[in-house]
């Protein structure tokens, strides 16, 4: 093998560090990726891979971003991935040839134990002193050369969130000697005495390097005193969440009207330009009425994610976890469950994967089982559709009634999750309470680039879903709703005689006690693939059910005319528990390595959804007649 061909072989490089030290930000900076970053620990729970080319040598690097770990002795699943990857214990994955240990310059005491353990592994190591600008601002003093001497490995300053903040790292990386061929390192978990010795060594090195702890600004101390106050803290948290849900409705009105107008215009243009026939119906009733009715909710989803990303980047979320620890503890959940449950507001799938940061198996299982009760973003179009059709858009004091109802639905999901967790932790998943140990990150002004990238990613994900699985399902549903053609002399819309009509009428027997008509019953089926598909399915089914002038009308007025208020409330109650999401069930199977838990989850969610919708429909029918 020639030297040139060796240089073309990608070098395996791993990014390691304690949680929330900026590994993923550095990974994104080096590889040009857009992996999720946030200002709290536990964002990365699996290894992520990217590549880049060394600017001077032309050497290709295969870069692994590993989950945060405080040491090579794991207590959680995500830390185990890091250790196993570094030691070459992952099947089909060779150990890295070089390691970059990212350390938080503002908190070196916590970071250096891992550096010393990595150094002992013998893999060529480079230390990236990240957030060095922040450390300097806070008055941290450090003799970099002395630190390098004491550690015996190169140390370089980086600012992962700034353009060019990785330049010095790349220069030193390229200058590292090629790794020597050697057998894989053996690693034995250290004894208590060995850990104590390492901690003493950390203190000695920091003292020798003249390291001074950063001074905390008084304003931030005061802010924490307020935000973490036992009375003011929860009040601030409630006010913040309340504001977010108000904004989701009031700020989205204009952009939603614009998207709606665009979708309606496109439908009318297609209707006018293609002669009546199968293709015309497919495009107008299937694609535009189906996928278009989901697309209308894009502004609301973007506004919700704007606030979530803002809170993530600011450092507020771990403080919210601290505030809610007592409440979580009272139902038997670990405080560490907060971040996975919060992630579930976006989608239950990453939320369930984030439970890898929970060390106790029973706590982890309980969190997995309740994660789907958090209101994921896919439910938002369903809620927004029904609220827009049935809840008047009028002020209630300083608030908007529609926003209040949406807030109530989110709270209902949280309360349901707490009650289920309470029941689980008192019965099948009984475990002792583990107090929350959480590192509170420093407050930061949200990074505009991160915010925009995060929103862009959400936009892409949503549009990709609408353009792929939702669109495809709408086309299939259009076919099922259009064929077979009605028999000669049949009256009423043709859809009633179609496959979809037959399926809907069969399902109606099951869901009639909840007040659901055959169209709603049918829409629940494609909703198994993704919950928001139910909105598109209603769009297609109602578009094909309509006749004459009604064809041009959008979904909101159609369902407002067809459903009773009791039915609408019943469907909202159903969706608080909504068991239909195949991806969630699949990921539960994968994370628990058993079919038992997804089966139990689907069963209990279906039972709760049915019960809640039944009670809501009966009570609402009695009160409203």
């Amino acid at each position, binding site marked *: 093998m020639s030297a040139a061909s060796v240089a073309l072989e990608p070098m395996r490089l791993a990014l390691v560090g304690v949680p929330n030290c900026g590994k993923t930000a550095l990974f994104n900076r080096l590889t040009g990726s857009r992996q999720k970053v946030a200002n709290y620990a536990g964002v990365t729970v699996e290894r992520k891979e990217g590549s880049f080319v060394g600017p001077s040598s032309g050497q290709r690097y295969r870069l692994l971003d590993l989950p945060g770990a405080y040491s090579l002795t794991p207590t959680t699943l995500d830390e185990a991935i890091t250790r196993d990857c570094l030691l070459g214990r992952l099947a089909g994955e060779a150990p890295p040839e070089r390691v970059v240990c990212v350390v938080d310059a503002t908190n070196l005491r916590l970071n250096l134990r891992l550096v010393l353990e990595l150094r002992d592994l013998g893999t060529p190591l480079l230390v990236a002193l990240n957030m060095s600008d922040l450390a300097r601002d806070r008055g941290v003093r450090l003799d970099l050369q002395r630190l390098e001497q004491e550690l015996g490995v190169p140390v370089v300053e980086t600012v992962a969130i700034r353009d060019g903040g990785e330049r010095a790292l790349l220069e030193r990386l390229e200058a590292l000697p090629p790794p020597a061929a050697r057998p894989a390192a053996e690693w034995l978990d250290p004894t208590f005495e060995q850990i104590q010795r390492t901690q003493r060594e950390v203190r000695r090195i920091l003292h020798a390097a003249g390291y001074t702890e950063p001074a905390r600004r008084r304003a931030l101390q005061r802010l924490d005193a307020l935000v973490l106050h036992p009375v003011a803290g929860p009040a601030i948290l409630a006010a913040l969440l309340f504001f977010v849900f108000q904004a989701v409705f009031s700020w989205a009105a204009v952009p939603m009207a614009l998207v709606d107008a665009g979708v309606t215009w496109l439908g009318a243009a297609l209707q006018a330009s293609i002669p009546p*026939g199968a293709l015309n119906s497919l495009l107008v009733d299937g694609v535009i009425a189906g996928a278009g009715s989901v697309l209308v909710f894009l502004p609301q989803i973007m506004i919700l994610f704007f606030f979530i990303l803002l809170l993530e980047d600011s450092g507020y979320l771990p403080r919210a976890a601290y505030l809610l620890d007592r409440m979580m503890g009272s139902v038997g959940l670990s405080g560490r469950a907060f971040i996975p449950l919060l992630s579930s507001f976006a989608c239950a799938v990453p939320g369930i994967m984030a439970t890898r940061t929970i060390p106790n198996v029973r706590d982890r299982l309980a969190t997995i089982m309740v994660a789907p009760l958090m209101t994921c973003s896919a439910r938002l179009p369903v809620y927004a559709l029904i609220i827009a059709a049935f809840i008047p858009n009028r002020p209630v004091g300083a608030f908007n009634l529609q926003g209040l109802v949406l807030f109530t639905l989110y709270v209902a999901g949280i309360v349901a999750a707490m009650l289920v967790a309470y029941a689980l932790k008192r019965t099948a998943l009984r475990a002792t309470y583990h107090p929350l140990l959480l590192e509170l990150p420093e407050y930061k002004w949200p990074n505009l680039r991160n915010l925009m990238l995060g929103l862009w990613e959400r936009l892409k994900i949503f549009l990709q879903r609408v353009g792929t699985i939702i669109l495809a399902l709408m086309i*299939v549903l259009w076919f099922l709703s259009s064929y077979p053609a009605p028999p000669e002399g049949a009256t009423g819309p043709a859809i009633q005689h179609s496959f979809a009509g037959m399926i809907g009428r069969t399902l109606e027997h099951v869901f009639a006690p909840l007040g659901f008509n055959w169209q709603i019953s049918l829409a629940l089926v494609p909703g198994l693939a*993704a919950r928001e598909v139910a909105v598109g399915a209603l769009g297609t089914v109602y578009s094909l059910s309509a006749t004459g002038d009604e064809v041009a009308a959008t979904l909101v007025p159609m369902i407002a005319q067809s459903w009773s208020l009791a039915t609408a409330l019943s469907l909202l109650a159903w969706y608080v528990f909504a068991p239909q999401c*195949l*991806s969630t069930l699949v990921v539960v199977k994968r994370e628990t390595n058993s079919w038992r838990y997804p089966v139990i989850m689907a069963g209990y969610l279906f039972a709760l959804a049915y019960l809640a919708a039944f009670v809501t429909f009966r009570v609402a029918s009695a009160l409203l007649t």
Partner: protein
Amino acid sequence: MDVGQAIIAGLIVLTAVVYVAWALMPAALRLRLAQRLAADARRTGRPAWLVRAAGAIERNARRRLGGCSDCSAAQPAPVPPKRLDTD
């Protein structure tokens, strides 16, 4: 014209059915099918575009977990560490 529209609509529906089946099938089965498709395409004599397309399908199948694009980067779940607290 009606027949032409019906043929185009039929092809679109067929494509959608294949995509839905592909997207919603279990990840392991999808990966096996994609690998088989890529291996078949790599046999000599196949057009280059087919080899490239099959390779892209295989890469996509490796990345995807299920019907949810949020979790497209998901890797297999790790083996629990030995010292997990199990009460």
